[in-house]
């Protein structure tokens, strides 16, 4: 129990941060026309590719003699990059279609 109280006290700012971000997320998406749902989902998909920052972080702290960790880390960076690059490029291709008719 002690641990949990400590945990709450140590991370109180984060909790506010999380709650406020949730509201920002809801606010930002509110009232979007149906037409834009697919590109929006795709764009959001690209943004969560930000996990790649975590993957790079792991790799920067990895023990170079730990082969399994190296393999998993490299794989994580690769998959994260796929998510980011593929996500943004696909979204751009979709949105390009909307612009053309102007």
């Amino acid at each position, binding site marked *: 129990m002690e641990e*949990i109280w400590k*945990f709450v006290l140590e*991370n109180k700012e*984060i909790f506010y941060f*999380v709650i406020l*971000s949730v509201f*920002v*997320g809801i606010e*930002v*998406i509110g009232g*979007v*026309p*149906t*037409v*834009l*749902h*697919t*590109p*929006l*989902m795709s*764009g*959001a*998909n*690209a*943004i*969560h*590719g*930000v*996990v790649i*920052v*975590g*993957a790079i972080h792991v790799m*920067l702290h*990895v023990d*170079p003699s730990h082969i399994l*960790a*190296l393999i998993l*880390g*490299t794989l*994580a*960076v*690769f*998959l*994260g*990059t*796929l998510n*980011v*690059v*593929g*996500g*943004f*490029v*696909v979204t*751009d*291709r*979709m949105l*390009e*279609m*909307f612009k053309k*008719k102007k």
Partner: protein
Amino acid sequence: MEKYALLEIIYLIGSVTFIIGLKMMGNARSARNGNLIAAAGMILAILGTLFLHENDVKIVVYALILSAIALGTIVGWMTAKRVQMTKMPELVSMFNGMGGACAALIGLMEYEHNAGSVGAMIAIVAGTVIGSISFSGSIIAFLKLNGTMNKPIRLPSYNIINTIVMISVFAFAGWIAYASSAEGGSLWASSVNGAELSQGSMLFIYLLFAVAIVYGILFTIPIGGADMPVVISLLNSFTGLAAAFGGFLYDNKIMLTGGILVGSAGTLLTLVMCKAMNRPLTNVIFGAFGGSTTSSTTEVKGAIKDASATDIAILMNYSKKVVIVPGYGLAVAQAQHVIHELEQLLEERGVEVKYAIHPVAGRMPGHMNVLLAESNVAYEKLVEMDDINPEFDQTDVVLVVGANDVVNPAAKTDPSSPIYGMPILEVDHAKHIIVNKRSMSAGYAGIDNLLFYDPKCSMFFGDAKKALTELVNELKNLD
């Protein structure tokens, strides 16, 4: 010191670009720039993470990171550029799965270094579980959308099995988090020395990873193809959540903002989509439809009429108003250009032509708009369901191309139908209905369509592109 301060500033800028980018993506005019702004923020954050640190990193490790990024960029770019517009939803699903896998791998790797810390363990275990579910779920969604796995697989009493598996995944996860974060009285007390866990306890996190993968599969396989967009959107927000847990673990603000933003926006988007189909989310997940056994109660009466291209050409030529209902079949056959040609031909002859777009036409909301925009159909001709429905009464001919469930009157008349309650395009109010389909097979929801037996309805069988080309030629010959 200044490096870290600079990195924090970069993360702050990155977070702001995500918020602004997402906001701009909510408006057709600014959407493309919004996407680019978010992408710029992402690149900045990645470069910052790579170079703004004071760790002593071996060249080999750097080489690995950079080559992984290079390879990922090439593969991601090529796939995204080459894929056909019709395949876009499954691609989004695939990329989403990759992000989930990335989050899960981070969890696996960090597990051994964080024994004894409650917060870190919660974040690690949660990131692993959610990332893995998102990964395997997305892969299944991908396979379903691209047709490799086209029938929903229903284990006997799958709801109970799934719930049991889900509870065990979370119980197992909670237990691991608890056991490995308790400093003294750990369940494998001897192996906890400072911050490193033994090999034996590593087994648990891999086991958890495996179980979560299995749950992701079980979660997705019973869900019918028509509901896949909702599932993808949901898994999308899962991956966001997994990324946020990573951010919590490293106290990394950009991962937190990016992750939570997508998590909450994705959840809202999921609910909005469910609303468009008039089905609660729980119904999508637990009351999955699309099976063959669910409803055989509706007896089909009447006969099906067949019409030739010539008949239809003449009919259309002498009508005042034609409404086209495009569905996924049109997209699959790549018939969006031919349909535009048909539209132009009819307009030249003084026929008013409109497109009726159901909110879930295609495979995702807005998918059909993207496809038709690709073939230069004017934006104003695409009319959303609520606006077009009152117009069907004055419509002479409705041409349904490759759509099925969205025009099935059973959604309004038959309470036993699995799609009962879904808002539909009321095409049966028009004077004539022409349905182009490849065969009489049921639609994506796997149910029979009463519309086809309507006396006003004629079937025009054939691949959408071929059939429409034939129709266009017949129209040209009429002069």
